[in-house]
């Protein structure tokens, strides 16, 4: 029998705020445990929560960017349960009324056609601390640095139909949240976390099959792989006539397999009720419209603009807008240098290669748009060749100096002085009479060899176009 795959994703994203959700502690990663803590986020008696309005603004922005309806009146509820990583014995979360609901994202399905993925809810909540289990001995320690960090949870309806669709949904979601500066969405560092619910049903069947929950996937690739693995596992079970057990599974990166975490999907009774210590969150239509107007241009719109306005190929536009940082970098360059295609080539090629090898973001590296433009201008002015420029970019990037300084220090200025070049050409011709003969005899390739010899003599500093021109003039055509 053929089965249809049904996937729903729950994504937790840490918000980029200065402080935690309910206290003034910094929302910043530190390695040393329990540094970013105060009586509030440690759950001391008598300390009340103070809502961080920056987090509310971020949640509003994210909800709008995900096409959600906005609740003008919402509030926080307590999810009560015992675990050492939650200091108050409850987690504050928007359980009853999420700030955003009924949103959607449009992604490409497996056939390349647009498809709407419905987003059920976007709600705010506070993060928990971290348990650290001592390697030896029988103690566990708690680090509350992360406790109280603001999160939003974004839950899709069960609209995804394949691991590929799931990955594309995540990529699009990440792009949007980064574009809106809501989160840095670094899955490896835990600022974006994803759980998946998967089930299979016979093709055409309206009812959902028994689902399993997948956890602990720490890259988009791992999400895709674990889903593939889990779908195959469920399909094998169903085909053999057995039933899928509802349970929580953990993706194990080492063995590339899923491992049962909890025998049964425990229906937690969180005993939720509305928090009596926080005031409700009241937004006006005006607040919402202001936030909507402030939304930045999204990746797809930006890419379309690059194609229309700058005449860039779709491929270039797609790569440049894949991260807001790269797109911002590109646009900053264009403010100083009016050749979009050349700029794009350099950003997509050499600049990205340097970013990848250092792991830096465009706004973190010292090689700023003005530096790239300086380099491009030197090429245009024929001060250096394109080939040398690649080398200059790498050195300037790594040393943190300007490209002009690299060129000057290394004596890389291109030779465009005609008389100087002529001397070298005469020398090369006299040393390679065979090649000259061959060329005259009709072997066009030999010209290339001679140009190469001139470049070698000048250590690559000769202007190749000029060399070509002069050679032709001297050996005649």
């Amino acid at each position, binding site marked *: 029998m053929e089965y249809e795959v049904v996937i729903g994703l729950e994504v937790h994203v840490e918000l980029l705020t200065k402080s935690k959700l309910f206290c003034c502690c910094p929302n910043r990663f530190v390695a040393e445990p329990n540094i970013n803590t105060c*009586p509030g986020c*440690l*759950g*001391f*008696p*008598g*300390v*009340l*929560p*103070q*809502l961080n309005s920056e987090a509310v603004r971020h949640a509003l922005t994210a909800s709008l960017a995900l096409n959600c309806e906005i609740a003008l009146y919402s509030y926080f509820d*307590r999810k*009560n349960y*015992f*675990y*050492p990583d939650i*200091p*108050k*014995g*409850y987690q504050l979360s928007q359980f009853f009324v999420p700030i955003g609901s009924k949103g959607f994202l449009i992604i490409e399905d497996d056939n390349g056609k647009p498809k709407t993925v419905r987003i059920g809810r976007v709600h705010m909540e506070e993060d928990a601390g971290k348990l650290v289990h001592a390697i030896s001995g029988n103690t566990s320690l*708690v680090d509350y640095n992360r406790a109280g960090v603001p999160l939003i949870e974004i839950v899709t309806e069960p609209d995804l139909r394949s691991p590929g669709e799931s990955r594309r949904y995540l990529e699009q979601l990440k792009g949007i949240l980064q574009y809106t500066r809501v989160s840095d969405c670094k899955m490896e560092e835990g600022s974006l976390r994803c759980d998946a619910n998967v089930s299979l049903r016979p093709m055409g069947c309206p009812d959902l099959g028994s689902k399993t929950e997948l956890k602990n996937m720490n890259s988009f690739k791992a999400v895709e792989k674990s889903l593939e693995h889990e779908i195959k596992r469920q399909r094998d079970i169903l085909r053999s006539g057995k039933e899928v057990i509802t349970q929580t599974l953990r993706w194990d990166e080492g063995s590339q397999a899923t491992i049962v975490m909890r025998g049964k999907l425990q229906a937690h*009774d969180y*005993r*939720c*009720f509305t*928090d*009596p*210590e*926080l*005031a409700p969150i009241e937004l006006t239509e005006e607040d919402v419209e202001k936030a909507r107007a402030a939304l930045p241009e999204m990746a797809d719109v930006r890419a379309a603009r690059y194609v229309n306005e700058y005449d860039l190929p779709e491929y270039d536009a797609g790569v440049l807008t894949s991260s807001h940082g790269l797109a911002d970098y590109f646009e900053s360059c264009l403010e100083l240098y009016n050749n979009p295609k050349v700029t794009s080539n350099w950003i997509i090629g050499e600049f990205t290669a340097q970013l990848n090898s250092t792991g830096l973001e465009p706004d973190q590296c010292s090689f700023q748009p003005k530096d790239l433009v300086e380099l491009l201008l030197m090429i245009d002015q024929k001060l250096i060749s394109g080939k040398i420029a690649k080398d200059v970019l790498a050195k300037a990037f790594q040393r943190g100096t300007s490209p002009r300084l690299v060129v000057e220090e290394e004596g890389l200025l291109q030779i465009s002085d005609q008389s100087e070049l002529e001397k070298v050409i005469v020398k090369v011709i006299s040393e390679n009479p065979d090649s000259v003969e061959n060329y005259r005899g009709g072997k066009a390739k030999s010209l290339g060899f001679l140009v190469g010899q001139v470049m070698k003599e000048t250590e690559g500093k000769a202007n190749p176009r000029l060399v070509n021109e002069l050679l032709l003039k001297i050996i005649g055509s």
Partner: protein
Amino acid sequence: MEFRKMTACRAAEAVNNGETTACQLIKEILERCNVLNGKLNTFIKIAGPEALEQAAAVDKQVKSGQKLPLAGVPVAVKDDLCCRDLPTSFGSPAFKNFISPYGAAAVEKLTDAGAVVIGKTNLDDMGIGSTTTSSPAGPALNPWAPDRVAGSAGAAAVAAAQCLIFLESDSGGALRQGASHCGVIGLRPTMGRVSRYGLHTFASSFGQIGITASSTDDILAALEVISGFDARDASTALYREKSAEKNAAVEPEIIKIGYPTAIIALLAPDHRNLMERAREDIEASGFQLTDFKLDLLAEALRAYYIIAFAETSSNLSRFDGIRFGMADYAENLDELYYKSRRLTFGQEASRRSIFGTFILSQGNYDRYYRQALKIWTLVRREFTAVLDQCDLLLMPAVRTLPQLVTEQIDFCRLYEEDLFCAPVSLAGLPSLCLPVGEVDQLPVGLQLVGRPFSEEMLIGAASRIIPEIKFPPNVIC
């Protein structure tokens, strides 16, 4: 100094104009406090050295020419309010050594105004109850009849002139009933008038900080000092928006006081007679009187308890043995919770936690909690409607005389003692309990209830009604 007839305002005046010093005043009251504490068990901790140090600082300020509204006034604080540098026990043996790194906003405002904290008073298990019979330190005794409880240890301390002002929490009526039982004046302000930062409350929706003293002037002086907006307590934003009708002239002729004929019928004959006599006295003072009734009193009491249980189960969750409490060795997490919570909570705190857990559980939420929320709304509406017709309401505060220390009372009957106080808490209204007479040589007070933020009117009206405050005849000293 004759403390029996001393008021806080008079004491501050004496310190400010140099008749005496804060140090002298505090030294004398500490002696008195220590002697009486052997008989009354009102204080858990008398902070002698700390108080003398504070007093010296006040004298220095006064000497430098500052006028402090409460200069040198000895203040006692219930032991569920955190004070910097003084231990806070919350009425639990597990908190013997807990010193908070922060002080309650209300306490710090008092000390900033020159008041001196002389100690922390006795209270029930986790601050839950209005008898102090569940205190690990044993009950506080009533200065009028040492075989009976005081209800509120601080009210007893004010009655016996161990201190001049007392700051305490009131949820279902502990403060008001204590004032009634001890023959002093107790004010529970509107929720939002006083910051609760630093108060551990078992029920966040109702726990409020109030003032007990032996004169209306002292209540007013302390209220002016402690009230106001505080970013650390979201509820005080309401006060910032509405603000009190300060300096509203209280002319009896234009004030209409509601008298609850139907409710009076619920009282025992002696208490009923007292109410009726009070009515005559009030009428004689020139106030207009009119009849009112409340149909939802019994339902309000139940709703109050259901919501308070639910919040208690959640508010006490933070005491899980990880950061607070006496975390003994445990094999696993469940054992750790079991051991430490059993040590932290007495019978009443445990009972209410369990009730609250039950009430919020799946299925029960709708059956109990949601119903209680609906009643809450109806009760607010009923009080608002009644207060449309009257400026103030006269209500009983207690149903019976304070219990005998040796008496074992069923917990349900104790809950019913709150029939007149808890509904006022539910309605979020300010209430002042004032002594009006005696039953069996024991003082009995009644409540004046007003509109939100009408504390000044309550105090003004009370000052015209209260007969001379009597001193308990058994207190020789």
